[in-house]
């Protein structure tokens, strides 16, 4: 493989973030499988790890590892785009260790002591913020997240300011700033449950269906510029149109969470109309990725990265777009709200949009940080296999959960008299829950395959070819599978 080095030495800090992200990802999946098992073997791990504790670990690890992934991506991307070294690599490294230790301590806290005890130990009574879904972190962790985010934004913003300003860095910076600002609402917990729920979505929805999409679009645009060689002007225009549609539909799309939590009925109209349009930016992203790959002006040797990029656009559309659409209209959501249909959508959307875009960045950047333009063919082949295995595992899970959700609605929600109770319904869903576990195990196999690809070296023939002076461009790169 062609040797290559990072254009800017400070980009190397990204490696720490990527390694940590992947390690936490493994933890997330292991806990996910234990949760899946508890759905069918109710007392599995009880009383050592009750469901709620395992679930906090599962969802919080997801958020934290994606944040590691976003930060690592920014540290890699921004110096290259800005054509200057990072403002302070030392700060980036210090924040890395602070975030990692704080994150690890929080997870230990979730597992080691009862949640009420954790709340007491960490001063929850000073400002009550704990115990709301996804925002379960103790107060010191939340404060720590704010400090890390501020330091990170400072570092990135100073780098952008002293260097070249591109649309990609601007959009990325807006996304990351929005992420940090919206997190501040996690400190706002009104006593009135309806107000509390309304404001809670300003963090949760406006993250994943708002500012995170800016991060997603800019990372995808960066990798597509690098791997296809298509003109920046073309890619910038697509990126702006995609994020314009994302926010135009996504902001009022928040309304699809306001149907049944005590807010006025007009949200049923607003939420239905605007969230029904939310698949549009994701569809545009799919068209964009395929178009750029078709119009490519070079054969980049890292075809695995291209597969992840195209995969992000397709699975983001299916998960966030299609699976969101199936239950977003208020007359449908009236029956599916709070069922396994929501779980199906959540899993595929996070995987398709955010997990895959982080892996896309890692797949593109990691070989360069390891001193080569792309991984050996054999390693890329393992990586591509891992994409298909993970995606297939996820597909099985999502179809199983969708089946479970539909049956749940049929038994528990639709009947006007004689509806089955919650637990009686759950007993009827066991087949789907077992199938979900099979999908989850498949996903874990895919993830292990992915990690293994980092350790696959080149074949003897490839080594000989490089030794003889034949670069990777001498042999046509393998066509992108799935493109």
């Amino acid at each position, binding site marked *: 493989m062609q040797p290559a080095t990072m254009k800017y030495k400070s980009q190397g800090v990204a490696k720490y973030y990527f390694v940590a992200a992947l390690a936490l990802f493994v933890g997330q999946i292991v806990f996910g499988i234990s949760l899946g098992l508890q759905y069918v073997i109710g007392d599995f791990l009880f009383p050592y790890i009750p469901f709620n504790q395992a679930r906090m670990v599962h969802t919080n690890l997801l958020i934290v590892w994606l944040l590691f992934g976003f930060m690592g991506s920014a540290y890699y991307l921004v110096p290259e785009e800005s054509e200057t070294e990072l403002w302070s690599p030392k700060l980036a490294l210090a924040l890395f260790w602070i975030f990692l230790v704080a994150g690890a301590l929080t997870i230990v806290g979730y597992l080691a002591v009862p949640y009420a005890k954790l709340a007491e130990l960490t001063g929850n009574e000073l400002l009550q913020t704990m115990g709301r879904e996804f925002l379960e972190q103790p107060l010191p962790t939340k404060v720590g997240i704010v400090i890390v985010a501020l330091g990170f934004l400072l570092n990135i913003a100073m780098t952008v300011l002293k260097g070249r300003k591109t649309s990609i860095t601007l959009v990325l910076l807006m996304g990351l700033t929005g992420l940090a600002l919206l997190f501040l609402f996690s400190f706002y917990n009104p006593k009135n449950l309806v107000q509390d729920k309304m404001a809670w979505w300003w963090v949760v929805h406006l993250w994943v269906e708002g500012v995170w999409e800016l991060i997603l679009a800019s990372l995808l645009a960066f990798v597509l510029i690098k791997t296809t060689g298509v003109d920046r002007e073309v890619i910038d225009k697509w990126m702006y149109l995609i994020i314009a549609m994302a926010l135009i539909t996504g902001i009022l799309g*928040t309304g699809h969470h306001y149907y049944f939590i005590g807010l006025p009925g007009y949200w049923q109209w607003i939420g239905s109309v605007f969230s029904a349009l939310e698949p549009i930016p994701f569809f545009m992203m799919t068209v964009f990725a395929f178009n750029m790959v078709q119009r490519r002006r070079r054969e980049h040797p890292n075809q695995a990265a291209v597969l992840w990029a195209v995969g992000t656009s397709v699975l983001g559309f299916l998960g966030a777009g299609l699976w969101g659409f199936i239950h977003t209209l208020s007359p449908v959501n009236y029956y599916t709200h709070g069922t396994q249909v929501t779980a199906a959508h959540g899993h595929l959307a996070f995987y398709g949009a955010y997990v895959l875009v982080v892996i896309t960045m890692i797949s593109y950047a990691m070989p360069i940080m390891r001193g080569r333009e792309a991984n050996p063919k054999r390693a890329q082949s393992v990586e591509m296999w891992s994409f298909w295995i993970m995606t297939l595992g996820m597909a099985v899970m999502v179809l199983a959960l969708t089946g479970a959700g539909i049956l749940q609605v049929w038994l528990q929600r639709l009947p006007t008299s004689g509806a089955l109770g919650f637990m009686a319904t759950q007993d009827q869903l066991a087949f789907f829950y077992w199938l979900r576990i099979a999908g989850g195990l498949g996903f874990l196999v895919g993830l292990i395959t992915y990690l293994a690809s980092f350790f696959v070296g080149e074949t003897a023939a490839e080594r000989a070819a490089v030794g003889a002076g034949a670069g990777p461009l001498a042999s046509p790169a393998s066509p992108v599978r799935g493109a």
Partner: protein
Amino acid sequence: MARNIFYGGTVFFVLVFIALVTDSAGHIPKRSNAAALTPAVERGKTIWETRNCIGCHTLLGEGAYFAPELGNVVPRRGAEFVKAWMKAQPTGVPGRRQMPQFHLNEQQLDDLVQFLDWSSKINTEKWPPNIEG
């Protein structure tokens, strides 16, 4: 052009969203019967949060999908049943889902039930479709 659509569209819809949310906030006192939001209900919400109930249950359809909806549990089961149920946990039935024992005292149980009872009277546009939640 594309960039201006982004900036213009974002600013416009952020403003519309703020206007709508402000209007909604004005409706909350009446729709949630805020007059009945007593200190006991407030304390009950804190119990709800610090025991991480949302990690298994849903409340008005939001939360985890492992255990029953509790937004209407008081009308469904009655206040006394809820308290007795919590005291009897875990059931220890092999293979069944288990709820931890939270060691709440009588006052805390009452507060929690007050909170759930208040929650059941929020105007949720007739959700859930039936009493099973």
